[in-house]
């Protein structure tokens, strides 16, 4: 057994007091204490010091400290942390649900916010373009149209030759006269109406050609005008006598009823559009300044006909929408039943609209 010196023993005082010494070392220390009174006295004094520390008075926090702590926590909170988390979660949930519902409805109705905006922008720009055209450009366009109206003349020449071969010289002359008069009528119509947009020319041209075809019945097969739903249903920028820009016609729509409608507000227009043209983007119409006239021919199962707008005339007490029907020949309908329609924006006037079928 190694003899423990007093210094070594003193190093074990803390462990001895805290009862952390192994049994053997504890016994050794107690043995040493019996032999060494100085160490024993020192240990007693050391123990007293530790006991004094353990029995020092305990201080208590201010009774109001809980309020102060909670006030500090409240002050340190950021603005969103001050709301009740349950209320906050609920609010976010409701907002998300509303947004989802709106987009869901749009998807269900086949409309799209982006498409609507694009159509609105396109309508605005077309209106601006229409207004920007001045009289100078008007004249040049009319001249161009006159030049291009020579094309139908050429067509009529070919028809003449074919008619000669058929041996009907007299009827040829009559037809020639008729075509000439029709040409003049078409030209007059163009000049009177002061048509401004290039697209209008194509419409005018087809109108003239159609009229020619009607007058020359035997040559109908040669004058094939192919209608397709996509081509005919595209919007046409055209200024009517009442100075409105929007016009659209087509052979297919979802309305199977024969009816003529005048629309004066956005809501009715939306309803009509959803009912009849849900597959297409709805155009923007300024109902403060314009109204819409719509002609539906209904389902054309046998001998289908198309609408030809003859003109929109503003009289003292009414607006007259004159239109006629023409037969559609050799049209590829791909098995679909035709439901021709004609939509036209007209300048808003506080007089009734009358549809006249010629």
């Amino acid at each position, binding site marked *: 057994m190694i003899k423990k010196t007093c210094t070594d023993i003193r190093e074990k*005082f803390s462990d001895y007091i805290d009862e*952390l010494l192994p049994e053997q070392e504890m016994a050794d220390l107690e043995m040493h204490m019996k032999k060494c009174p100085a160490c024993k006295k020192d240990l007693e*004094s*050391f123990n007293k010091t*530790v006991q*004094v520390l353990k029995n020092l008075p305990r*201080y*208590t*926090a201010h009774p109001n400290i809980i309020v102060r702590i*909670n006030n500090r926590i409240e002050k340190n909170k950021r603005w969103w942390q001050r709301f009740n988390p349950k209320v906050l979660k609920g609010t976010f949930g409701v907002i998300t649900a509303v947004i989802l519902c709106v987009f869901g409805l749009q998807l269900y109705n086949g409309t799209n916010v982006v498409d609507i905006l694009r159509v609105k922008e396109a309508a605005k720009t077309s209106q601006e373009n229409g207004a920007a055209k001045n009289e100078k450009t008007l004249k040049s366009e009319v001249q161009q149209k006159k030049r291009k109206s020579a094309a139908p003349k050429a067509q009529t020449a070919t028809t003449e030759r074919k008619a000669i071969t058929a041996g009907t010289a007299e009827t040829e002359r009559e037809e020639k006269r008729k075509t000439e008069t029709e040409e003049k009528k078409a030209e007059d119509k163009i000049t009177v109406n002061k048509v401004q947009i290039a697209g209008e020319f194509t419409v005018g041209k087809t109108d003239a050609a159609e009229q020619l075809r009607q007058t020359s019945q035997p040559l109908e097969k040669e004058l094939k005008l192919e209608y397709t739903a996509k081509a005919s249903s595209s919007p046409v920028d055209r200024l009517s006598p009442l100075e409105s820009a929007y016009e659209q016609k087509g052979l297919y729509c979802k309305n199977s009823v024969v009816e003529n409608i005048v629309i004066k507000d956005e809501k009715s227009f939306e309803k009509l559009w959803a009912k009849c043209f849900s597959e297409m983007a709805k155009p923007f119409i300024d109902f403060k300044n314009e109204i819409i006239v719509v002609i539906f021919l209904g389902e054309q199962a046998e001998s289908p006909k198309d609408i030809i707008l003859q003109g929109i005339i503003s009289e003292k007490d009414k607006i007259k929408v004159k239109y006629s029907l023409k037969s559609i020949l050799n049209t590829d309908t791909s098995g679909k039943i035709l439901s021709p329609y004609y939509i036209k924006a007209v300048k808003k006037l506080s007089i009734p609209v009358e549809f006249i079928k010629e």
Partner: protein
Amino acid sequence: MVFEQDSDLLKGLKAGKQHYFNQLVFKYKDKIYNTAYRYLADYQEAQDITQECFVSVHKNIRKFREESSLSTWIFTITVNLCKNKLKSAEHRNHEKTLSIIEKALDVKDDRGNPAAFVEKKEFETRIQAELERLPVDMKEAVILRDIEQLSYEEISKILNIDLGTVKSRLHRARLQLHDALKGVI
């Protein structure tokens, strides 16, 4: 007052229930205040540290990974706050708010005998003064072991040192206090 177990308190705290936080404050406020007071020997600063400690607990309770017990974590926060306060110039230039009146209000003692009370106060002031003379690492070992009576393992975790270091620091601190207080005790 009967308090919930620390594990139950912790669940309530993590769920953000105010009632559990109030319970936690009531359970630990005096321990934290006493520890802070022994560290800083200043009534007002000990109050501030106690408040800061609980604000920090409230803020960081969701980050607490339960690698130690809740009480160990709270003591770790307190010790760190006290150490930072001791290092700050604010503390060094601070005039101590250690009036006898304030202490008399706080200390639970026998105020029936004024002479004994004053004597006791003087004795305690002497011990506190000797505590303050100790280096911080030794002082905190004494405060946590002898005054707060925490286990060596808890002290080891709070101070982030091994058990042997805790023992040696504590023994040296006790020896120094014993030598310094020989004439008094």
